[in-house]
């Protein structure tokens, strides 16, 4: 970007944006600008810039237009066919298309956040080294090498209070110091980008939106630890992240930001990508390292810890994408600044992927310590479809759920653990009154059962046994002792399993029993699903008093089990009904039950 390019058109091109047609929108902007000679017309250059994700993926394609006259204006749901109109009105005529502007909630969504890790995401072109350099790119690593000793860097990270963003929350500086203190010539820095939790996509967005900041974070770690080589372990399901990261690595090698004697600083650092083959367990650090080595991704016993004997038996330090992305900000702005954010025990910000029954799903970066309630209601606009909030599942399949009663739990590591959930990588799945908590537990357990590597007995067979019990309950075959069996098993599996997967897999069950035991009891004792979710327990019917005769259920029914005519109350034919629940989900008036 040159300075006289006053007009910037930022088009969100994360995976969400691209899948909503951002490439076509970008092409259309370029075409119209070129064909109409817009640059000449307005007397300024128009830069069409692709950017990473800015969070509100639900509203893609998001286009920001920055002009002198109108400042920054965001349009959402942009389609290629309206591009010409936007250019004519906004850029040429300098009139904001008020009707097409993103609704106020978009600004609320953005303003309530504190973006540090994601500063670059959505602002700069992730494919441009120059754009990154303009944002003080690689200044942090230069500062480290020129002005700080490796021990000094570690101290700075320690002082900042940064904790691992992968979920465990281990103090990053401490982790680095362990690896730095391990004897050995050859050490490795590994970035864990095997983000596998259902509904979590913050690491993907960071890699897609600002790959250079992760590279810089790893270089700083490499310098601090004494590692000359690193790996980024990215799951192959993230093609765009891999593409952009690879592009960034190639440019870095070409321009001397990686390789021998980087930036003339007199230190060497090599970095390469290892694509994961889609196993959830490879997010576990020892399994991840086994996978890099070409072995089957199965966790290894610890000790020896990776800091002592990690990848290929060498001391290795492994951090998550978001952790590395924090590092350069700590170095540039100082540990004290960073430590001033957040709570006593959790510093800085945390990115959450908020999904589920919430109005505005997407990525939000908030200072640690904001309450769960604020994240859901203030940032994300509350529950969709006027339904009642029931719980939020934090930390994915390893986490637990937080019910309405303790919704004021602050989002920091320790409070979430206390609440029976965990920070995890930062997935928040919001559930409303139509979600059955037994079914939620069943869902997550199905996931972990399938993703267990099969190495240790409690996880491999134990989860299957627990799932069988849950399935029994959700199909009305449960017996009263099942709850105790689940609790007993869950607690034993947690203690006895080999790795984090098995040690946390019972959490969704244990926390749902803790907060929603009554739902379990209803399934077992009354053979009833209070949330009308477990289809074997349901007999669907139309509640005539509530029916507004809209016909939504009729349209949704895939087997013609609902009879409806305009202005008539719908009728559900039990004979034909397959209990698929489509009508229930379609009805916005709770008139089907």
């Amino acid at each position, binding site marked *: 970007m040159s300075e006289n390019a006053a007009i910037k058109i930022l088009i969100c091109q994360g995976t969400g944006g691209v899948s909503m047609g951002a490439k076509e929108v970008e092409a259309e902007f370029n075409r119209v600008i070129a064909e109409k000679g817009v640059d000449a017309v307005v007397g300024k250059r128009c830069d069409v810039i692709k950017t990473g994700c800015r969070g509100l993926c639900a509203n893609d394609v998001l286009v920001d237009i920055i002009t002198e006259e109108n400042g920054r204006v965001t349009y959402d749901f942009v389609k290629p066919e309206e591009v010409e109109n936007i250019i004519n009105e906004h850029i040429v005529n300098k009139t904001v298309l008020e009707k097409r502007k993103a609704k106020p909630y978009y600004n609320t969504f953005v303003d309530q956040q504190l973006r540090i890790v994601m500063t670059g995401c959505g602002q700069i072109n992730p494919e441009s080294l120059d754009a990154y350099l303009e944002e003080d790119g690689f200044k942090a690593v230069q500062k480290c090498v020129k002005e700080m000793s490796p021990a000094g860097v570690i101290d700075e990270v320690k002082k900042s209070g940064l904790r691992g963003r992968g979920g465990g929350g281990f103090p990053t500086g401490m982790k680095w110091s362990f690896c730095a203190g391990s004897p050995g010539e050859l050490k490795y820095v590994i970035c864990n980008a095997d983000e596998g939790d259902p509904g979590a996509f913050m690491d993907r967005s960071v890699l897609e939106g600002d790959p250079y900041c992760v590279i810089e974070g790893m270089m700083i770690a490499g310098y601090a630890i004494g590692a000359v080589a690193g790996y980024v372990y990215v799951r192959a399901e993230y093609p765009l992240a891999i593409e952009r990261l690879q592009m960034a690595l190639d440019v870095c090698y070409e321009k001397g930001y990686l390789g021998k004697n980087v930036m003339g600083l007199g230190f060497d650092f090599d970095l390469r990508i290892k694509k994961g083959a889609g196993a959830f367990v490879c997010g576990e650090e020892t399994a991840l390292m086994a996978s890099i080595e070409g072995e089957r991704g199965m966790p290894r016993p610890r000790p020896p810890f990776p800091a002592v004997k990690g990848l290929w038996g060498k001391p290795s330090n492994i951090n998550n994408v978001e952790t590395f992305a924090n590092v350069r900000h700590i170095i540039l702005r100082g540990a004290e600044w960073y430590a001033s954010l957040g709570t006593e025990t959790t510093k800085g910000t945390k990115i959450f992927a908020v999904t589920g029954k919430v109005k505005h799903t997407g990525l939000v970066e908030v200072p640690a310590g904001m309450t769960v309630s604020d994240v859901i209601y203030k940032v994300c606009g509350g529950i969709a479809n006027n339904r009642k909030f029931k719980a939020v599942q934090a930390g994915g399949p390893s986490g637990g759920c937080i019910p309405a009663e303790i919704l004021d739990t602050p989002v920091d590591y320790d409070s979430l653990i206390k609440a029976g959930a965990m920070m995890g990588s930062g997935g928040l799945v919001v559930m409303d009154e139509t979600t059955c908590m037994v079914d939620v537990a069943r869902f997550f357990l199905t996931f972990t059962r399938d993703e267990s590597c*099969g*190495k240790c*007995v*409690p996880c*491999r*067979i*134990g989860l299957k046994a627990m799932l*069988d019990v849950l399935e029994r309950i959700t199909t009305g075959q449960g017996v009263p002792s099942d709850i105790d069996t689940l609790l007993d*098993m869950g607690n034993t599996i947690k203690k*006895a399993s080999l790795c984090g997967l098995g040690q946390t897999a019972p959490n969704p069950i244990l926390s749902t029993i803790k907060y929603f035991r009554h739902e379990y009891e209803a399934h077992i004792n009354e053979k009833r699903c209070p949330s009308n979710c477990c289809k074997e327990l349901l007999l669907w019917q139309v509640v005539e008093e509530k029916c507004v005769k809209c016909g939504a259920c009729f349209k949704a029914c895939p087997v013609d089990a609902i009879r409806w005519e305009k202005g008539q109350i719908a009728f559900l034919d039990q004979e034909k009904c397959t209990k698929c629940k489509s009508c229930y989900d379609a009805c916005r008036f709770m008139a089907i039950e």
Partner: protein
Amino acid sequence: MVTLTIDDKQVTASKNATIYEAAKAAGIQIPVICHDKKLNPFGGCRMCLVEVEQMKGRQIPACTTPVTEGMIVRTTTDEIIKARKMVLELLLLKHPIDCPVCDAAGDCDLQNLTYEYKVNTNRFQDEKFNWKIDYENPLIERDMNRCVHCGKCARICDEIVSYGAYSFINRGINAKIGTEYDGPLNCEFCGSCVSVCPVGALVSRPFKFKARWWAMNKVKTVCGYCGTGCQLTLGVKDSKVLTTIYDENQGFHNGQLCTRGRWGYQFINSDKRITTPLVKKNGSLQPATWEEALNVVSAKLKEAKSTPDSLAALVSPRLTNEELLLTRKLFKDLLGCDNVDHSAGYAHTALTSGAKESLGYPASPSVVADVQKSDLLLVINADLYQTHPVLGFEINLAVKRQGSAIQIVSDKKGKLSKLPEAKTSIYKPGAELLVINAIAKVILDENLLDSSAQSTGGFSAWQKGLESLSVDQAADQCGIAADEIKAIARNYAKAEKALILLPTGMGYPGHGKELAQAVINLALLTGKVGKEGSGVLILGEKNNSQGAADLSIHPTSGGKSALDIIAGCVSGSIKTLYVAGENPVVSYPNRKLVETALEKVEFLVVQDLFLTPTAAMADVVLPACSFAEKDGTFTSALGAVQRVNRAINPVGESRSDFRILNDLYNAVSGQPAFTDVKAAFQELSGTVAGYAGLSYDTLGDEGSVRPVSGTATFVPVAAAAPATESGKLALVTGSALNHSGTLSVYGEGPMLVCPEAYVELNREDAKSLSISDGDQVAIKSSTGELRLKAKVGSRLPKGVVFAPYHFADASINTVTAGSAVTFVTIGK
């Protein structure tokens, strides 16, 4: 050392010990399923969970967690018992309860632990797996429905055997141990996986439904195949050897065996065994009584006493030390005949002449423990893995676990070439002496020699002998680039600890003595003899080859060597030939010549287990016993003197070689040589160097490594450029992995995997000759012609073909005549 508390007991353990090991040493047994002391920690079964005061809130796997100072461990809290019971409950949820028909019953960790923890109910119900059972290989039944996922099979196959036949596949509850593409198992069939399987998921097919584990006697003994000297436990019932049983506490190899050791036992109770003496009457062998047979033989021996030069004996190094001593006493001392030899003569000269002259004793200066302590293993001939497979496991461990470098110098690649960062330098067949001398020359030229070398005897004469050697020229002649030779020399000389391994055997004619001397020169030059993790291992081929060398079962005062004896039979100077356990027709060079010799010799006695092609030509056949039917000792190639224990009664009327020879001694002299085996050992310990102080009774199950001592000296070894014949392929012979000598062909197991003779050739050669894998081809030399099955692969360099020597039908000595390389043509 670290002090900790386990179950209120103060325990001291090495700082590298795990909680499990520390507890075990203190007499506290922690249950395990997936743990194996030979393998890297795994931590999968979760049976060994314990509580550690300092790590509250978690249950700690004892088998993977190292001890730390002051640790307070509890192994049997209520919580722990509960967790272990849960593990068993979960395993039994999926594991079929088919113990009544499972061969592991009685020896099953899951069964035993279930009993111990009294798990007689299960809170859960589930269907069992329905994996297809793999019956598609002859030796190992794989029933993955019974698998408990301890991973031991995959781990041992990878970590120790270095084959990698198994891996975990699939995820979650569907995870299982799979093979390549989940197809039928097709590996080298060492059976290590079967031995470590804690349940009945992997069982021996030949043993299936033969006996319950608890109904068998378990007899500890020593393997009767190669010179490695693996200890063995035989499973015996009703005086039959039914299987080999794994005992992880046996031997340096922790009970692990190779394919022939594990599966080759069936020859013992083979129905092909000769059960009565046979005497030739009217041109054919007829059953006879022992009295009759011994009378005929002893009469001939008495007759020969006056003309001892017309008598000769060929004795197998499979016999025990005591039997070999008896042979020596009978033929050399009593009958005055020095025409006694074994292993075709050439197969023992590396030890009996080479090492003897260079070191002062006919044995290796190093022991097995040196392998894993070495920084560099220099393997001469990649076939070491075939000749001594369990030593191959030690090499695998040295390279993969201890980080030792490995350099192979060979005429072909082998399995060892596939080890991580293994370097293989291929020389032209027959060029080995030249390569070794060239390496020595580089060390001299670059002044990399050890300070001790010049003061060692014979140095200057030897150095002088190498003066004219040009490394560049040698490189040209041997086929290894000069730079590569130089690199080998530098790496070897500079390695703090380097061990040379040299396999020998009847399949490897040529430079036995010279090659041993050349490598010993190399070791002396660099000061590597007499140092831990260094030196030379010259590996005798058979189970007691080293004993035969120690006891000098070869001509010692001008008598005829094996090949001269054969020639003497042809020429008529040898009139009576006594063959004990040897099978010259199949294993000595030039089959036709040997057959002529045995036809011509006036009187031929063969003492053997089987009616081998050699025995079939005899005048008298005396049925001998296998190692399982007798007591005595074997001395391994690694210097261990070990007890062989009688497991079953002699098959039929067969008698041990000891008894036969003793009876003959008695018949000739009027009194037996020894009262029993023990007395023979006693004499042996008094007369054989290194055996002094050993006592038959105190050898125990472990055996004892006998010491060696002598004065080392450099011996000049002349090396010529290898011969070539244009337009012909160079045939080299050797051992096949599944076989040992000509004995294993009577074992069912080896024959199921490797049933017939073959010739192995390179893909390119095969292509240019239009030969495909499995084709029958004609192989022709100046000695003879033979049809063999072709095996096409990438192990051999272009222009070289290989054939194993074990098979009586189509034996390769039909085309070979005892030189290192035989030039042949091959066609369809």
